[in-house]
């Protein structure tokens, strides 16, 4: 009988080995399915980027251009982002290669809209949305969209009616920008954060039969089996379960992919085809994941191989040393120091290393803390359940902690992210150049006055009182201080500055540094170019910049020399919540494809990205916690089965199941709580440290921080839920069994 046949016989005859094999298969299946999904994420973002590549500028063509194109962004009245592409055919439209999902090029005055945008246009007054694009002449297909809900407008023009930003191209941009690096990074983190609990689940399943298998293998060794033969037996037993699990994971991965398509990222959900992984990586994952499990199982046999008698006779746990606690404060202090001082790239790398050290320290300190809690119960027990739980934790703190180790990493990472993200969210939009509600378009000097005039004409047509203002760019003095050329009242209204009553006086120069030298009062249109002197008697008045991005100097046009012409500028219009959409429509139509910007739009973009991150963090935490809970539950069941004869005897002697279940619940729940709360606190502290590096602002601690603790309690509840059923199963078995 070879090893494979022996393994099959064991699986057929031993119920507990069968249960363990099934659980190992489930753990491997979950790990395989998760890895298959996570590894496909970068490719998924690349698919999106490829589909939407035509929405971006392509390589400018100096000769042989078939079309002229301008790409810009806009938003709907309800704040959703629109991708706008203005296009004009320079050759026969029939000869222009169209991207997938686009049937034809829109004629001048026509627009092809994505289904979601067409729907929004149908349900919104024309002056607020539809008039920005022209006549709706058709629908863009899914293959032309990054994601199904994307709002895209392909607007047709005559060549002489194109926006100033348009550029001639040989054709539509054919290639995407590659994978989203942020999601690629998150996928990498996810592989670690979710695979570790999956593997802990596998290890917990293996523990169900650890004692029985050790005895069996030790018997084989004592009977003369070689180490190679013993390894072959275990490898065959584990390989059957792991290979089955990997195939199961591969089989269910389409369901996981389908579920993943509903998770929004970067503005929308996904197409099912986005997550398709190539044959080579798929086969590699389906082979490597079970292979690692088999190697781990073979590695776990080293004690049986070296001391079969020792394995057969059992062993006493070694006490844990206090030095396990030392690395935690040391790495924590190192992290805190680097977090407050790191400036260079090298120091930032050290900071990440120290963060990894904190994680490693948690793994070392966890069992010690578990043991300490066990000791506390042992000293202060009032009920047998407290004594039993305390002793068990004290005797095998590593085993008790191991079951929840997978959750530690996830909770640590999640808590860190949930600390950093809201803090960054609190800072989002804080850097601003313009006042709230101001819509603006950055333009070149040639278009500055024209766009301002066209906007004002449209605003008047729409019956709005607001007026667009042309603001020129300039550089002041030898220090090249960034200056905006605009009158004082308009600056007060449009820019993120406080003019501090300076507009009462005659026109002048306004700056937070009013003691500026007269020699510095020169303006130039280009950075680091010789400037034109301002009048000698120009008054310099104080003002306050309200943000780091706000201009350092305001120069009233009345004091600018007549021979000075700015090279670029901005057309800015104030708006209120009530008329923002009309103002945007007026400015967008005048700007002809140049992006209309606002603090709110930037804020929405930042918040949307933070929402994405927060969402995937919580999903990851949830998945890791479910896996961790299952691991802890299996470990608990294993610990009951390991002691089935003792528990059976106690119950036969009249010990109520509830008393033993209470002890086991405490035994299962305490390490889970310690692990998750400890990891949560450490993650929060590290998150605060990281935020201190990236920003000087105050941390924003939100209720989301309670999520890891809640999940920890969830893990503890899942872990402890199996106590009573496992005991009842033991109770139902004959005492003489085993």
């Amino acid at each position, binding site marked *: 009988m070879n090893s494979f046949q022996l393994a099959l016989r064991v699986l057929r005859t031993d119920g507990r080995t069968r249960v363990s094999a099934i659980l190992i298969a489930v753990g491997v299946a979950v790990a395989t399915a998760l890895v298959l999904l996570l590894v496909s994420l970068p490719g998924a973002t690349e698919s999106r980027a490829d589909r939407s590549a035509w929405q971006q500028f392509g390589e400018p063509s100096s000769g042989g251009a078939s079309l002229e194109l301008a790409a810009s962004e806009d938003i709907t009245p309800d704040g959703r982002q629109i991708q706008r592409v203005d296009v004009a055919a320079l050759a026969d439209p029939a000869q222009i290669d169209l991207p997938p999902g686009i049937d034809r090029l829109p004629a001048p005055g026509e627009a092809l809209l994505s289904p979601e945008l067409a729907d929004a246009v149908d349900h919104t007054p024309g002056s607020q949305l539809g008039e920005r694009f022209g006549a709706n002449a058709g629908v863009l297909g899914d293959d032309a969209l990054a994601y199904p809900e994307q709002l895209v407008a392909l607007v047709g023009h005559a060549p002489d009616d194109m926006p100033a930003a348009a550029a001639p191209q040989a054709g539509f941009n054919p290639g995407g920008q590659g994978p989203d690096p942020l999601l690629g990074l998150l996928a990498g983190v996810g592989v670690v954060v979710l695979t570790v609990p999956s593997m802990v689940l596998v290890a917990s399943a293996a523990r169900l039969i650890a004692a029985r298998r050790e005895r069996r293998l030790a018997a084989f060794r004592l009977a003369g089996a070689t180490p190679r033969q013993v390894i072959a037996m275990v490898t065959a037993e584990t390989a059957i379960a792991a290979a089955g699990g990997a195939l199961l994971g591969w089989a269910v991965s389409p369901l996981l992919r389908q579920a993943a398509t509903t998770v929004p990222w970067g503005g929308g959900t996904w197409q099912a085809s986005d997550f398709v992984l190539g044959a080579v990586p798929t086969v590699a994952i389906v082979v490597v994941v079970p292979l690692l499990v088999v190697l781990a199982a073979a590695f776990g046999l080293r004690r049986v191989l070296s001391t079969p008698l020792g394995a057969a006779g*059992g062993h*006493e746990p070694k006490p844990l040393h206090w030095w396990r606690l030392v690395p935690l404060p040391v790495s924590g202090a190192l992290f805190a120091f680097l977090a407050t001082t790191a400036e260079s790239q090298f120091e930032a790398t050290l900071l990440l290393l120290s963060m990894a050290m904190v994680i490693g320290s948690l793994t070392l300190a966890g069992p010690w803390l578990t043991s300490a809690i066990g000791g506390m119960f042992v000293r202060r*027990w*009032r*009920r*047998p359940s407290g*004594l*039993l739980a305390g*002793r*068990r934790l*004290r*005797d095998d703190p590593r085993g008790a902690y191991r079951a929840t180790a997978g959750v530690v990493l996830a909770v640590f990472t999640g808590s860190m992210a949930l600390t950093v993200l809201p803090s960054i969210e609190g800072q989002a939009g804080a850097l601003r150049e313009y006042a709230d509600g101001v819509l603006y378009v950055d333009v070149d000097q040639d278009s500055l006055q024209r766009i301002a005039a066209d906007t004002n004409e449209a605003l008047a047509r729409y019956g709005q009182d607001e007026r667009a203002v042309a603001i020129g760019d300039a550089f002041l003095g030898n220090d090249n201080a960034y200056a905006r050329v605009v009158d004082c009242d308009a600056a007060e209204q449009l820019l993120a500055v406080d003019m501090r009553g300076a507009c009462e006086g005659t026109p002048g120069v306004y700056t937070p540094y009013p003691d500026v030298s007269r020699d510095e009062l020169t303006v130039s249109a280009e950075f680091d170019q010789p400037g034109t002197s301002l009048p000698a008697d120009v008054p310099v008045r104080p003002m306050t910049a309200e943000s780091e991005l706000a201009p350092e100097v305001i120069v009233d046009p009345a004091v600018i020399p007549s021979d000075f012409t700015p090279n670029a500028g901005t057309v800015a219009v104030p708006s209120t919540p009530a008329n923002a959409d009309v103002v945007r429509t007026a400015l967008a139509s005048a700007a002809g494809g140049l992006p209309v910007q606002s603090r709110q739009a930037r804020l929405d973009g930042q918040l949307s990205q933070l929402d994405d991150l927060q969402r995937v963090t919580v999903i990851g935490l949830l998945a890791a916690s479910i896996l961790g809970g299952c691991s802890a539950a299996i470990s608990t069941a294993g610990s009951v089965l390991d*002691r089935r*004869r*003792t528990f*059976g*005897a*106690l*119950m*036969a*002697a*009249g*010990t*109520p199941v509830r*008393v033993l279940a209470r002890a086991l619940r405490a035994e299962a729940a305490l390490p889970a709580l310690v692990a998750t709360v400890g990891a949560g606190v450490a993650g929060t502290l590290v998150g605060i440290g990281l935020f201190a590096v990236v920003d000087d602002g105050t941390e924003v601690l939100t209720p989301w921080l309670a999520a890891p603790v809640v999940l920890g309690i969830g893990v503890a509840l899942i872990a402890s839920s199996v106590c009573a059923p496992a005991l009842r199963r033991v109770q139902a078995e004959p*005492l*003489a069994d085993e």
Partner: protein
Amino acid sequence: MTTRISGQPPSPAIPARPALSGRGLSKRYGAQHALSGVDIDVTPGEAMAIVGPSGSGKSTLLHVLAGILPADDGEVTLGGRRIDSLGETKRSELRRTEFGFVFQSGMLVGELSAEENAALPTLLAGTGRKEALAEARRWLEHLGLKGKERNRPGELSGGQAQRVAIARALVHRPSVIFADEPTGALDTRTGGETMRALLEAAAGSGAAVVVVTHDRDLAASLPRTVSLRDGRIEADTRAGAVVPA
């Protein structure tokens, strides 16, 4: 090492004990009859052995009498009160208070010390920590385990572990002690010493002892022996007399 029981058991007063009876007890496992109409009486304070070949129904009879297994037919009474018709909760409570158990390999809780194992029944019954441990220590000392109170089961010999199990079976002063192959895992000498310790301690507390065993010598040392075969009582022998089944 020979261990002597030291002095009187911890309880000076021996209360009146109820008699345990089984009438017409039958138990089937599928098509197999483990017990077929067994009648048996256990009088207070007596010590008896139940013997028979493997599969004769010894352990099943012990488990049915102790209320661990329900009988398919027949009734079990303790002091005239039927206990087989009680619910599982009541039967558990009865086992906890009226019965004590000694199993083949002690079945001690590995994480607990000898005194904590011995104190477990009284702790579970709600006795305070100090009082329960003190009582357990008295029994351990009585059974010759002074100085071993803090040892874990893994640090005790097989005989010592069985003495802890005996202390655990006696600490709550049961009416009947059920012992299932109590010396099965011990050598002859240690087994003999352990049985002596069990019988002397039980006699001192007034508890009856029902021992299931394969060991004919052990059975012969007890005042009464019930022989089972194929689920029926083959013989019921009292010292000096054979009572027809």
